[in-house]
């Protein structure tokens, strides 16, 4: 298993964050008068494209080659779009709509007077915005994984940013399996044998790509627990 080091994006002049639609500096960008939004601007488009002018991360192309060699999966009737990810040894899912960003790992800064190993792992900077970074493993009571099992696929840890009614949360995931569309009949009820903490947040179970069980988390319960948990000292 190889985990490539986080890649630094090439330096770009992020005018959109200063004088553009996401910035608050004055004077405003003159182009906005005509273009209305930075999305319509070729400076913004060029900067986005430049992100692709770098070598592929290690293992990325090999993973794609393997995927391409396989027959394409038949798509099913779709109703619910989920992001499937792994924390410790558990595969979990949340609705795609709550995700704002999934990005390369970056430093998590400890917060003073928070004990290590608590719910709040620290603060994390994603595109200049500071988000509280919480530990789903702590919230869901997941044990740290046994010795990392040898895997034949590329495993990339990520930082996910999700939007809750009270603001954005970041959390670290050990792996993102990707987007999944599931039909309601593919969801199963959570059996009572599942440990209490996890069951409390799980709305349903579904089968992962390799037959593993994926717990679909109830995002509202999760966000409420985060609000409560972070308010505690």
């Amino acid at each position, binding site marked *: 298993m190889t985990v490539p080091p986080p890649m630094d994006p090439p330096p770009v002049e992020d005018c959109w964050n200063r004088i553009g639609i996401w910035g608050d500096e004055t004077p405003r960008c003159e182009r906005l008068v005509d273009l209305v939004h930075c999305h319509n601007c070729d400076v913004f488009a060029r900067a986005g*494209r430049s992100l692709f*002018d*770098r070598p592929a991360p290690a293992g990325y192309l*090999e993973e794609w*080659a393997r995927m*391409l060699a396989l027959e394409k999966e038949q798509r099913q009737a779709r109703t619910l779009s989920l992001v499937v990810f792994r924390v410790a040894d558990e595969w979990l899912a949340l609705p795609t709509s709550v995700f704002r960003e999934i990005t390369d790992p970056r430093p998590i800064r400890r917060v003073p007077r928070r004990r290590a190993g608590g719910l709040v792992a620290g603060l994390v900077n994603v595109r200049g915005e500071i988000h509280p970074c919480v530990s789903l493993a702590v919230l869901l009571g997941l044990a740290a994984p046994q010795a990392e099992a040898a895997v034949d696929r590329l495993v990339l840890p990520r930082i996910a940013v999700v939007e809750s009614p009270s603001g954005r949360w970041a959390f670290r995931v050990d792996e993102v399996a990707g987007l999944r569309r599931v039909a309601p009949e593919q969801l199963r009820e959570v059996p009572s044998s599942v440990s209490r903490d996890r069951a409390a947040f799980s709305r349903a179970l579904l089968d992962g790509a390799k037959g593993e069980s994926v717990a679909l988390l109830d995002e509202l319960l999760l966000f409420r627990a985060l609000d409560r948990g972070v308010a505690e000292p």
Partner: protein
Amino acid sequence: MSGDTGLALDLRVGTSRYAVDVRDVVEIVPFVPVAPVPRSPDHVLGLLGWRGEALPVIDLGLLLHDRRCEALLSTRMVVVEYVARDGERQRLVLVAERVTDTLRRERTHPIPLRDDGAPALGEVLVDGEEKVRFLRVERLVSEELRATLLEERLPADDGEGGTS
């Protein structure tokens, strides 16, 4: 196949721009390693194991400009489909740089084409100050070359090995 949308895929080799009609494009994928085919022309990188098929891979850099496409994320493989002379649908993989954009025909101006003996190159459009040359995907690989490549064809599940 759907009707003409006027949309074309923008490809580059260095600073030269080319285009392929989006109706010919099946899939765009990263520039993955391919299995080389012995005794094939330089611009044929090899065969790509693709969805259970083995497809010939053409490096447009080597074919048109005698230089390899750079190995960047923006360099991609474009799986194209065309109808061969015998009426059969054939698929082919093109490697080109800066495969990040599309262009619209109605925003460009066609300019008259003189026959310069390059059968794979078609219509020329002017986009702003740059010229864009359309590729005739059905002319990129001759029937003979295709036959040779297919003779050497590896089982599709070996197609992923290669020149990493």
